[in-house]
């Protein structure tokens, strides 16, 4: 595997680390099965790419894209909390609506950013190649987001959100406005996904309407891989674990792309990725079993 592949996997992994943090909030903390992600990730890309190609500076564009994601997430939350639509269905409705909305925003299915300034070209230090600079910039950003979330979930509102997820009835009896907590959580979750989408579009040469396909699957895989390699109930470790999970997942794909023996071909990529992830998930189990035996039960 070449150094470019590795840096590339780190870069895309860190972007999906933001998605994984969003999925952690919806699926794990709020226990809200949220598929909006498949729409909010391209929403972020669509808003950022459209604004940048219209001449707005990339930072403001990325910020607006993130806010758009927050808005989309809060609508999903609103559909569920206020209109009493089942959580999964509410998110599906929002996801399919966003497909049309994204097309409306972009005005066409593909908005290229190859020759426009992006947050990466602006921040790139001189003398550092772009393939190293981009993951470095992302690493700083993702670490900042991680600590911001850790801090937030230790505040009173953050704790109230966690209580809402683990036991809504108990939370309500303690005076937590659970509806508001769900809305806020969904907004934060989808804001992170949209931020990921905005950065993805800027690092990959543009936004495409198809860029959201399967985002939730990758986000969930990252969360589960992260949790199984670093199981913990501590928030700080959980946020770190899902970021590592997202990066690992991309490394597995990079690895799968480089597996060209035993007759494996290009179309086997997804299968190879699935097998590699399965192995990663099974290793802790096997280790535990082995330890159990030597421990002499």
């Amino acid at each position, binding site marked *: 595997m*070449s150094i470019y592949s590795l840096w*590339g996997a780190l870069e895309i992994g860190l972007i999906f680390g933001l998605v994984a943090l969003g999925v952690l909030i919806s699926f794990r903390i709020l226990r809200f099965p949220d598929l909006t992600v498949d729409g909010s990730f391209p929403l972020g890309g669509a808003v950022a790419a459209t604004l940048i190609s219209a001449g707005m500076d990339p930072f403001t564009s990325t910020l607006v894209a993130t806010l758009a994601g927050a808005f989309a997430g809060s609508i999903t939350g609103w559909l569920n909390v206020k209109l009493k639509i089942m959580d999964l269905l509410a998110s599906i409705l929002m996801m399919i609506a966003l497909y049309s909305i994204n097309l409306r925003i972009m005005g066409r299915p593909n908005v290229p*950013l190859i020759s426009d300034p992006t947050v990466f070209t602006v921040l790139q230090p001189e003398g550092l190649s772009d393939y190293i600079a981009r993951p470095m910039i992302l690493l700083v950003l993702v670490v900042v987001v991680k600590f911001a979330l850790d801090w937030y979930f230790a505040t009173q509102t953050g704790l109230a959100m966690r209580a809402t997820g683990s036991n809504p009835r108990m939370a309500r009896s303690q005076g937590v406005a659970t509806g508001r907590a769900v809305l806020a959580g969904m907004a934060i979750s989808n804001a992170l996904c949209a931020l990921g989408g905005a950065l993805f579009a800027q690092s990959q040469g543009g936004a495409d309407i198809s*860029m959201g396909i399967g985002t939730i699957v990758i986000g969930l895989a990252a969360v589960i891989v992260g949790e199984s390699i670093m199981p913990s109930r501590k928030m700080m470790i959980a946020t770190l674990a899902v970021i590592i999970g997202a990066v690992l997942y991309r490394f597995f*794909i990079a690895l799968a792309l480089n597996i060209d023996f035993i007759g494996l071909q290009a179309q086997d990529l997804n299968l190879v990725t699935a097998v590699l992830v399965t192995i990663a998930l099974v290793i802790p189990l096997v280790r535990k079993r082995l330890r159990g035996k030597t421990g002499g039960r």
Partner: protein
Amino acid sequence: MKFSTSAKLFFGAMAVMGTLAPGIAGAQSVAVTSIVEHPALDALKDGVKQALTEGGYTEDKGLKWQFQTAQGNTAIAAQIARKFVGDQPDVIVAIATPSAQAVVAATKTIPVVYAAVTDPVAAQLVKSMEPSGTNVTGVSDSLALEKQVELIKKVVPAAKRVGMVYNPGEANSVVVVKQMRELLPKNGMSLVEATAARTVDVGAAARSLVGKVDVIYTNTDNNVVSAYESLVKVGTDAKIPLIASDTDSVKRGAIAALGVNYHDLGIQTGKMVIKILKGQAPGTLASETSDKLELYVNPGAAQKQGVTLSDALIKSATQVVK
């Protein structure tokens, strides 16, 4: 290819040396990527390989050929682009818009030949169809729509309202629809649009056109081509003539199609790759469009859809589908 890790390192080192000392025989490599695999794109890829073989570039003679598909996922397309940049091939061939954008965003030095991109300028791969001066050139699969409108007139001379079914999420289709919107009024016709965001919507979209159009024209929209049979059913039931843009659809029930042969497009792309392998800079090569169009007609389908094809049209066809 079967390489041990040490051999891989060795070849990696060779590739680096190859870039330092261009022209070393046997060190040449071509990396091909495609956003998805489907019959047209596969035919294109095979065409590239055939052109290389005919030009004397075979794996026996030391050509390193690799193919990767993103399986429809843009994030994987991005990772494939990075892998290719790391592999340092002599030429990267990128098939379809998202794959081409990912590759062009990842390298400013390795020669890139795009293929099957309908509007490479709008996709910002090149500034114009002239020689780019950058590391990018390629072959567009855009069709000269004037010829398509001529075909519509030849098949259905009385047509005033032209219907189009397409996926609003496909960049290539949106380009064609936009051009048709301007071109048809110049020819005394109007465009009626029906969108199908998923393949299962194609039939319903076609039905919505019944009574509003005299003919249905479709481009190489992936959704429409995948579900062409549902369009044929509507065309036959409501006696609306169908005109397609890919020759395969004629075998499936369209009356006529004047289309690009994707295998030939691949050969054209492959010839461009050979020029670069021989030392020409990609920036000096102008982007190309297809130089060969094929007309397929289906008189049986014409009868079912209520029109009769003129003998002149049938005679001018590359192939008459029985």
